[in-house]
């Protein structure tokens, strides 16, 4: 794990946040360039996964605590937003906020239980996997969550219900959430807390010896991480208006949430976004290339993924940096 960490207070604000704003602005112009809802829907999905991955990246990328069960936070957010509306009649925006808070609370609870027991590495990974599975089974069996038939948010397409006729509106909201998460990650990276977190990733015992309260820092990290991933889950439910146990707590989202930062660049601000756009772009491109043969695009996607990982072992961002390095050496020579 060699994410570039920039904690120097002298780094200007423009250098720190300028790229985030530039990327957000460029992406925000997309609905003006295309009115094709196919493209917008694919972008919303990619941003949603990017958001889930950004949550994972805080804990896994910066803190080195690999979770295999981020579905537990995604699903909590998704179910919370659906059930608070359908069962308790809460306003959609309030429900969204509450879902993020509930997700954070679940994160804190799981973090408290596992970090207090000193679970590290593969043991921590296994325990998160188990939590996700327990939540899935409970959601699948409990009548309050709608059991196996899932929870439905009533279709009532009005802005005050957080339901929009235009995909572009959803796209901008997803982009705003991703941008907020990018800014928060950059702030964290520049803060003392971020430095502690990276210290824990690099050597937890050394960090502890230097006086870092590792339990507290890890607990804060998992809470923040859970909140961001829960926001992705809540957005999913609000976008599709339907969740069931396998969508919310299934392994697919645990895998997606860790895949995008790993592909994009572990422990970097832009890693999850780059990874999500690259993976989903690749998926869409192979779909268009493969044509009508069912499954051919998935096979092509898999092959390209293997190649990408073989030639860019440090993620897409790592590849950029390597290429940039290569060019500058050549220029110097």
């Amino acid at each position: 794990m060699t994410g570039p960490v920039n904690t120097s207070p002298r780094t200007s604000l423009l250098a720190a946040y300028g790229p985030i704003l530039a990327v957000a602005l460029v992406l925000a112009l997309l609905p003006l360039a295309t009115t094709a809802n196919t493209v917008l829907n694919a972008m919303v999905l990619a941003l949603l996964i990017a958001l889930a991955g950004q949550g994972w990246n805080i804990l896994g990328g910066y803190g080195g605590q690999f979770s295999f069960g981020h579905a537990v936070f995604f699903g909590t957010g998704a179910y919370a937003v659906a059930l608070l509306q359908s069962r308790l009649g809460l306003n959609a925006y309030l429900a969204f906020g509450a879902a993020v808070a509930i997700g954070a609370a679940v994160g804190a609870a799981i973090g408290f239980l596992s970090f207090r027991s000193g679970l590290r590495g593969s043991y921590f990974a296994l325990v998160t996997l188990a939590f996700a599975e327990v939540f899935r089974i409970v959601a699948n069996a409990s009548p309050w969550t709608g059991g196996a038939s899932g929870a439905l948010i009533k279709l009532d397409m009005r802005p005050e219900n957080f339901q929009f006729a235009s995909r572009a509106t959803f796209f901008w909201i997803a982009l705003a959430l991703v941008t907020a998460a990018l800014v928060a990650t950059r702030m964290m990276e520049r803060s003392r807390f971020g430095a502690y977190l990276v210290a824990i990733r690099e050597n937890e015992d050394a960090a502890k010896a230097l006086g870092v309260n590792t339990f507290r820092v890890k607990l804060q990290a998992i809470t923040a991480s859970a909140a961001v991933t829960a926001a992705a889950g809540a957005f999913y439910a609000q976008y599709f208006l339907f969740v069931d146990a396998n969508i919310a707590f299934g392994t697919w989202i645990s895998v997606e949430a860790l895949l995008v930062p790993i592909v994009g660049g572990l422990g970097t601000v832009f890693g999850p976004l780059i990874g999500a756009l690259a993976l989903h772009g690749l998926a869409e491109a192979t779909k268009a290339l493969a044509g009508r043969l069912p499954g051919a695009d998935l096979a092509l996607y898999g092959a390209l993924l293997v190649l990408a990982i073989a030639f860019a072992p440090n993620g897409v961002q790592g590849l950029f940096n390597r290429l940039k390095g290569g060019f500058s050496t050549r220029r110097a020579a």
Partner: protein
Amino acid sequence: MTKLITGVTRRDALKAGAAFAGVLAMPGLVRAQAAAVKVGVLQPLTGALAFDGQAGQLGAELAIKAINAAGGIKSLGGAKLEAVIGDARSTPEGGTSEVERLAAENVSAIVGGFASPICLAATQAASRYDLPYIVDVGVNDQIVSRGLKNTFRFAPGSSIVSAQALDNLVKLNDAAGKPIKTVLLVHEDGLFGSGLAKLLQAELPKRGFEVIDTISHPTPARDMSNIALQIKAKNPDLVIPSSYYGEFVLLARTMQQQRIKPKGIYAVLNGAASNFRFVKEFPDAAQYVIDTNHWYDPRNAVAIALKKEVDGMGKFFTYNVALNYSAMLLLADAIERAGSADRAKIIAALETSSFDKHIMPYGPTKFVNGQNTGAAPVNTQVQGGDIKVIFPEKFADAKAVFPVPA
């Protein structure tokens, strides 16, 4: 600009050549054919539900072939139907993405979905475009209870199926002299299994049956011997299993190996009990199993010919084939009566449909809030390596063997 021959530039020559090639390649255009009507065929072609999805696609495509062979849509000057295939990848997001693509490709309507979660998401995505959507299977009752104007379900939902299953069980039992007193429920803990088990637990005692145990199992499950042993110990008159394909096949085979022979196995919406693959591969375990499920009308000549065609292709004639075939015919009839490929006009035509040329054991189609109230399941029974309809009598092609001879 280079001149090839005097007065003719290379660009002109290329243009003429291209135009000529175009005429050669598309003779249809010269004949002024009526524009084809595009229809979306959305199925889970990859992923966990691929077996069902591919069967559904086959049914829809065979229907389109039949419609086009019979002269296409006559009110549109013999316009052909053209399938645009969408792969929902067995997930709701996959279904939604494909609805977006199909809508962008200007399809006039969509048929399919198969699984309830896919149908829930896909119908809603289609409703943004007022794009008519005919659900082929998806039994979850919420699909048609959301007030979506574009959504129509041709097949019965789970409440219709389970009510029918209970009524028919009582009738079967009464006709045989009430041999069944005790019932044991086996169900998978997912989608319909749990819900159905809860309903049966409440309803069976009201109809004079004693539920002596309810056993749930996960999907997938790799071993059924514990459940078989419990059945053996409780020794119920009737076993009601609600499971997917693999688990029920396993249970039926385990019960056969351990020589557990209740007076009957009466399934509801079972994944295997009315599947030719199960009957073909394990004829002994499948013998006399009764199911309440979607099924084609065995007395319908078109259905018999279609089954022969599908058998000839080396594929299984599952209910997905029959349902999608019928749903596509229903859509073609609506387009015919609408006299237009316009989405709103097709929705209006579906709302007033009384279509009865389908191959299902249903009466004329009549949509109330998007649900076809003419739809009903049937009871099938495996008899001598074949699947026969035993109930209702109007469509039956065999008598029930009930209770099972010891």
